[in-house]
């Protein structure tokens, strides 16, 4: 009995010393971790998988890593234009249904094997078969490899947007299975980097010496998972992380004051999109929808909440998107709005349900609700979990729906063309004239013509107030000055291959 207690007391003593020493060593503070050619990226979004075809593969987090490991046929540049990646040139037939891509010569996978057209065609088949989120852009499309350096993509209907759409298609070697964890533990790709380590908290990339564009100069890129904004910013300031983005306006001035950091704010493809449910009796009338838009003081809200990263949007899609045409701004006029609502017989007793999914948009939506309340329109603000939000979104179980709509393909086909036809049934709005413009635009191979047609479609959507399109979103990037070669990306998908560490 007694010896046991003695031992216990001894253990306690040792433990106390340990705890104390742990405390004292900790006060020395965080030493900067990344020396030499190593770069640490503070990841905003979780990267749970790097399978580009898998269910999570299309998310922003996974895609950011996938594009470092696997090349694509084509990719979009930061200005919105398309450039060849594995493909050097591409052309379509007159109907925009059959597209031929010529592959770059001499491209090798990271294991030294040469890239063949069959790899591309097999990857496409896998991508379509796995039905990940991005595969939905290619309904019943097929790809064949008639020779070693050409692939042919055949669409089920005319589709002039194919090159841009393919920016989400990544090429793997032939023979990767559906749930091939063995492959993705040690993936083989044609991208600038190779995977060194993958864990939920940390992803380590090392240069791929076989990369056709030349191996990156940095020796190591570590992507650390830091879901908390405060953690990312602290890490940036202590030098624990080199690159952070998605910095909100309230925290931005503090970061801008720091002389060791570069800060750049870039226009993204995202537009705050607040659809009205046109199938709700109260919102059937376009005059009512327009009046509600007029009743919200978006210029002030944006100025106060997003002084640096927001600007009033003047179209359904962002400026760098193919198909963007500016529309007439909607002026804030609560008196006129109230009069218009009364004239249209709007029932001020109805409560409109405004749904959104992400805590970061709470303040914006609350400000909108506050403005609507000022003219007597009652709105229930409903923040929903992603699962419930998505389900209700599809079921049209809402009156106003808030989304930050990004368009990584930078083509109006992906927003106007996909979300606004009657058949899409996304917001209760149906207009045959709009449908006609959209299908004409999709079938046209002439870019000028497409821009014109999408512009007309946007005018209908804008003037009929299918939704409110208040704000164009910018992303704020901050990176340590010791880095060079970093280019902020409008879709939150920066390229790490040009990074260099200055000594």
């Amino acid at each position: 009995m007694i010896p046991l207690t003695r031992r216990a007391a001894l253990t306690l003593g040792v433990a106390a010393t340990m705890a104390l020493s742990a405390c004292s060593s900790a006060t020395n503070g965080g030493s900067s971790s990344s020396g030499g050619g190593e770069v640490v990226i503070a990841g905003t979004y979780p990267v749970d998988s790097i399978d580009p075809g898998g269910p999570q593969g299309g998310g922003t987090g996974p895609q950011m890593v996938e594009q470092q490991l696997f090349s694509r046929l084509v990719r979009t540049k930061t200005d919105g234009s398309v450039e060849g990646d594995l493909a050097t040139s591409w052309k379509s037939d007159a109907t925009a249904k059959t597209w031929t891509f010529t592959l770059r010569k001499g491209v090798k996978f990271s294991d030294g094997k040469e890239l063949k057209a069959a790899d591309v065609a097999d990857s496409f088949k896998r991508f379509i078969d796995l039905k990940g989120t991005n595969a939905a852009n290619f309904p019943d499309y097929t790809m064949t490899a008639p020779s070693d350096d050409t692939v042919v993509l055949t669409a089920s209907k005319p589709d002039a947007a194919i090159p841009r759409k393919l920016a989400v298609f990544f090429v793997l070697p032939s023979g990767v299975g559906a749930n091939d964890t063995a492959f993705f533990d040690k993936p083989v790709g044609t991208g600038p980097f190779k995977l060194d380590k993958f864990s939920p908290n940390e992803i380590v990339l090392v240069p791929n010496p076989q990369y056709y564009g030349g191996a990156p100069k940095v020796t190591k890129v570590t992507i650390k998972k830091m879901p908390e904004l405060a953690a990312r910013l602290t890490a940036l300031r202590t030098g624990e992380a080199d690159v952070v983005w998605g910095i909100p306006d309230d925290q931005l001035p503090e970061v801008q004051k720091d002389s060791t950091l570069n800060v750049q704010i870039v226009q993204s493809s995202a537009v705050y999109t607040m659809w009205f449910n046109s199938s709700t009796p109260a919102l059937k009338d376009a005059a009512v929808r327009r009046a509600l838009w007029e009743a919200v003081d978006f210029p002030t809200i944006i100025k106060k909440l997003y002084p640096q990263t927001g600007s009033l949007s003047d179209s359904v899609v962002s400026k760098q998107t193919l198909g963007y045409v500016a529309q007439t701004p909607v002026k804030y006029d609560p008196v006129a709005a109230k009069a218009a609502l009364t004239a249209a017989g709007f029932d001020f007793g109805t409560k409109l349900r405004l749904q959104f999914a992400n805590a970061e948009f709470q303040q914006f939506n609350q400000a909108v609700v506050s403005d609507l309340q000022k003219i007597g329109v009652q709105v229930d603000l409903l923040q929903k979990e992603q699962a419930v939000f998505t389900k209700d979104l599809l079921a049209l179980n809402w009156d106003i729906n808030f989304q930050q709509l990004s368009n990584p393909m930078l083509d109006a086909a992906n927003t106007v063309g996909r979300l606004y036809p009657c058949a899409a049934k996304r917001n209760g709005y149906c207009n045959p004239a709009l449908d006609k413009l959209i299908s004409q635009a999709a079938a046209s191979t002439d870019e000028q013509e497409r821009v014109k047609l999408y512009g007309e479609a946007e005018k209908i959507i804008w003037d009929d107030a299918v939704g409110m399109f208040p704000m164009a979103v910018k992303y704020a990037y901050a990176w340590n000055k010791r880095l060079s070669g970093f280019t902020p990306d409008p879709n939150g998908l920066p390229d790490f291959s040009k990074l260099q560490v200055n000594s």
Partner: protein
Amino acid sequence: MATLAVTRPLAVRRVGTWLGKIPYAVLAIYALVAAIGPLVIDYNPISTSLDDRLLKPGSHLSTGGTAWLGTDGLGRDVLAQVVYGARTSILIGIATVVVSCVVGVTIGTVAGYFRGWLDTFLARGIDILLAFPAILLTIVIAGAFERSVPVVVIALAATAWISFARVTRSVSLSLRERAWVDAARVLGVRRTSILLRHVVPFTIGPVVALATLEFALVVLAEAGLSFLGIGLPPSAVSWGQTIANGKQYLDSAWWISALPGIALSLLIVNIGILGDQLTARYGRGHLN
């Protein structure tokens, strides 16, 4: 968080008589603020004032008033949120304690009095529920359903009734052997009347003491849920939500998180002391 009730009886009894009254006074103030505050201070969580964002405590508002405790990220008064949050916390606390008290006392009395398979069943059921940390079960329930007040109350009551059941069970277990209960049984008094007239009244003392402690736990748990963003809907004003909202402004506007937390802690400390006093006076039944 869920351990407030583990080791209570302490030196509190020795504290002077007027000191012992402090918890009553503080709780009375909270009750008063919760009841009358909303009538005096006008606050609408929906209406925002973007010109008054993130003002320091004591700043002047664009509307002419003064923000004694500062404003939050949408220019809403923090003092008003503390006052309205008190009402939310107290109402949810009372609702949950009442629900779990009714459920717990009913189940506990019946199980303790009738024993047999019912009692065994109850004991095992409680074992199962106790295998989860209380807050975990609450999170799973509250997180799985759409955010609303009833869901929060049910999620909190799902574990809170257990202590009531255990206490009343042990009280009624000992009571059923008492002479007057036996007498009533022999005289042919109906079982429900025996339970209601001869058993339940004796559980009141320990149940009141327990209810006080449970109230504190429930208020804490509700704030925790709201903090995690899976509690009340955003239209309800809650301390947990205000604290969570302020988390992103710790660097620049500490008052948003700090002040409601102080209000919450002060309430819990005083309920805890009161609970101690009541426990010391009425005990908590024989088994624990």
